[in-house]
């Protein structure tokens, strides 16, 4: 954990910079990461990294420069050298046509809203044991793969704008297991997420996998014809679609520059169905909570879509400066998006009991947007996708592609589950950045366009 000495060291260099009239921000990102990867029912990689990054940004009039140094920060000279790089870069940079904003810690903060020492200090052997138990209880005849990432993220920030300091420490984990039938070509998946180790349960994974096994063992895959279907989107697929919609529709820069799918609409107008509400809520326990963003702004509950109405746009520090707006606390890698729940029953099968034919697609693989401006997205089903008739599971379905628009899909949500679940969206590209979204456990959507289907899962 970041000790007082490192904080003092950074504050000292900050004070020196301030005295020289340099406008600079200093952010430490420290991670203690562990990941166990499973392939062919074996641990294929057991890896741990402890990395500290120092991010510096210097604003020099209308010029700016940033520098990141992956470094052991035990000496003020290391921070001074990195600052010097950023100062020189800013001095040589081209002037902008507008005044860039400087990072400013808005409120003194020392937060650990989601820190679990059991997860922070988890012995990797416990992960191996849990996987072994899942394999033996679910069935040794299957081939298993998966991964289990856990770790600690610390962020510490000061800037020359004031004397305040902001510190965050939190833990997070993302567990997954994929079961592959050795004879067939189908696979099942189960995930778990959270910030406490005791949120993980072997029983839950075994129960969910074993309940789906008979469907896949006893039925051939169903090839879905192209056309429009009522679809049950699971929390994974729903969170993926809504987060793409929010980050291309409620992004201040994209909206101002006419790039987004909402660019011809204004805040206050209804843009999707009135049963859809999306808030960025850093207080929601089903997300990874960060009380401040990387510009030092205190993060607060921020409505994006309320009952279908376009409420607000998100501005990070650079788009706020460019368009003369106030930053909204969205200079962050870890937003806390929350989709409001509805009044649907806990079990999606009950919600579609009267429907003759429904596709249940828990997650979308490799979603992308052929046209951001028109809100068109595409992605295909992967893992645990099912054909449901009159509320009964009939068979698994082959890899099925949805190509549709946000405007269509988010206007035709018939039912939203009343149960909220946490959907982990973290990636580990470069640095640890925990992200989770709080979402209804499913949504029933009518008239979803299916545009292709494979002959395999």
């Amino acid at each position: 954990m970041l000790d007082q000495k490192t904080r003092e060291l950074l504050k000292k260099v900050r004070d020196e910079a301030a005295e020289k009239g340099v406008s600079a921000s200093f952010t430490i990102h420290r991670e203690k990461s562990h990941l166990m990867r499973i392939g062919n029912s074996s641990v294929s990689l057991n890896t741990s990294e402890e990395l500290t990054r120092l991010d510096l940004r210097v604003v020099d009039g209308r010029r700016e420069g940033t520098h990141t140094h992956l470094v052991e920060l035990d000496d003020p000279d290391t921070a001074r050298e990195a600052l010097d790089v950023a100062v020189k870069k800013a001095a040589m940079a081209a002037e902008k046509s507008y005044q860039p904003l400087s990072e400013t810690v808005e409120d003194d903060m020392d937060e650990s809203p989601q820190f679990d020492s059991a997860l922070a200090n988890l012995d990797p052997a416990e992960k191996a044991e849990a996987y072994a138990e899942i394999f033996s209880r679910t069935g040794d005849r299957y081939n298993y793969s998966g991964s289990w990432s856990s770790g600690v993220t610390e962020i510490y920030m000061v800037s020359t704008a004031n004397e305040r300091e902001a510190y965050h420490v939190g833990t997070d984990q993302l567990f997954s297991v994929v079961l592959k039938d050795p004879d067939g070509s189908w696979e099942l998946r189960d995930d778990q997420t959270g910030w406490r180790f005791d949120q993980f349960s072997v029983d839950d994974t075994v129960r969910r996998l074993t309940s789906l096994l008979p469907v896949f063992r006893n039925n051939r895959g169903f090839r879905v014809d192209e056309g429009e279907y009522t679809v049950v989107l699971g929390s994974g697929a729903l969170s993926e679609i809504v987060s793409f919609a929010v980050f291309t529709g409620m992004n201040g820069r994209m909206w101002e520059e006419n790039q987004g799918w909402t660019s011809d609409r204004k805040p206050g107008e209804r843009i999707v169905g009135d049963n859809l509400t999306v808030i960025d809520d850093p207080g929601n326990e089903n997300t990874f909570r960060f009380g401040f963003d990387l510009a030092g702004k205190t993060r607060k509950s921020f409505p994006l879509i309320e009952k279908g109405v376009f409420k607000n746009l998100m501005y990070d520090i650079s788009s706020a400066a460019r368009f003369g707006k106030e930053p909204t606390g969205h200079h962050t890698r870890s937003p806390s998006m929350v989709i409001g729940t509805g009044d649907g029953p806990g079990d999606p099968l009950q919600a579609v009991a009267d429907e003759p034919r429904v596709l249940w697609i828990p997650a979308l693989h490799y979603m992308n947007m052929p046209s951001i401006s028109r809100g068109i997205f595409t992605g295909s089903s992967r893992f645990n996708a099912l054909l449901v008739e009159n509320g009964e599971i009939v068979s698994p379905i082959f890899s099925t592609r949805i190509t549709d628009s946000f405007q269509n899909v988010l206007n035709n949500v018939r039912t939203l589950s009343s149960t909220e679940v946490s959907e982990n969206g973290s990636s580990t590209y470069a640095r640890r950045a925990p992200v989770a979204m709080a979402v209804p456990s499913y949504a029933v959507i009518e008239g979803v366009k299916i545009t292709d289907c494979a002959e395999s899962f």
Partner: protein
Amino acid sequence: MSDHPEVQRQVESGIDHALAEDADYCDVRFYSKDKSEFLLLYDGNLEANDTGTESGLGVRVLWGGAWGFAASSDLGSIEETFRRAVRNAKTASTLVRIPLDMGTQSPQKGSYESPMKVSPFEVSLKDKLDFLQRIDRELEEDWIQRRMLRAGFQERRVRFWNSEGSRIDKHLCNVFGAMMIMGMDEDGRMQRRSHSLFTTGDGTRGWELMIRPELFSSHTERIKTELSQLLKADELEYGKRSVILLPGQGHLQVHETIGHPLELDRILGYELSYAGGSFVDLGSFGELRYGSEKLNASSYGGVANSPGSFGFDDEGTPEKNYLLIDKGILVNALTSRAMVREANERAGRKVFEGSGGVARASSFYRAPIDRMTNINVEPGDDGSLRDIVEATEDGVILDNPTSWSIGSNREHFHFGCEIAWEIKNGKRTRILKNPTYQGHTLEFYNSLSAVGGRSTWRVEQVNNCGKGEPNQTMEIGHGVPVMRFDDVVTGERG
């Protein structure tokens, strides 16, 4: 290693420690300097002026058939990093059904340098900005709403050791560049045209690559003209027709539907929980008709100037030039040492001769995985783009991706492109906007009906290929010619 004798000493003793602890194998990568820079001119404003430096050591230990990995940027804790890697491997070995085995390889002593005249890090920021701003001014027009110019530079010095006595030094350099402009079409929607810095496969890849006009800066007028035409264009209508992929699009098609499905770790199921699997299985090699007789695809391909050329991979295997698909038949995969041994054992026959030298890691703090090198389609004998167009009855020429979405086993795909040129009876007719196409991989490559000659072939650079857990982003090259595929589903149903 004259500049880091203490690191050298500690690494040697660390390898001894791992072997004394009964490790099957151990390798180490020390990045004495890993520098990166990213510049973005956005509507003329320098919106990114970022640099990064990293240095540190990654240790990989195979113990009891399982990998343990540990990394640290603290050169004061090399001993502890080795101990942690051994400990991680021992823990991993408690759950092993199929032990991994690196086999043996003769020790490699060597070095590799990316061909380079001027390091991009020796060019002043001012000179770099002058260059980008000049291009930016050429792109500026009242009717163009957005201009983006990106430049990315990397320079790495890496020393590799393994427990077999290999020692390899690498000095790698990459230069990436891209320009994009946007404008509003008649429906009030944004259209875009872009161009990325490519290579001819020859020459050097320092700063001098970026300033060769024919590869980058001279494309401004072309993309402006094409964007202005796109803004007034009709929409591509749904239907089956031929598609002619220019290298700007063809390279991504090859990347996603030849490169990824032929990574052996994917085929063996090691990526199932993240990137996905592959429709290819071990029985496919030597048997599967992947494409028409016109399809010849290779790994590495003897391309000197590419991000996919690196001399030796990250487990000490020299890079190899070999065919993946020979006249349409699948013959080989992208392979590394342990994957080859496992595949041959599982198949009960020698499917693969030896490692293809594709194990690479994105940084010192990531472990090597199977990666594309230069995944190329060899030039064919169907002449120039013009020759191919003249021989096409009903089709579209497509360039540059806006979107890519691929099935989890790479069995099907959907791409969106920036621009289409309609072809009717051997002649280009209209420009069409919002083009998309989709297909099923084998059916698609079996419909390959024309492959352009050497004049149409070029190396496109990819710097954002994501794979692995923890996630890694890798740099790759694709030498591809113009290719025509028939009866492809294009556009979206109304």
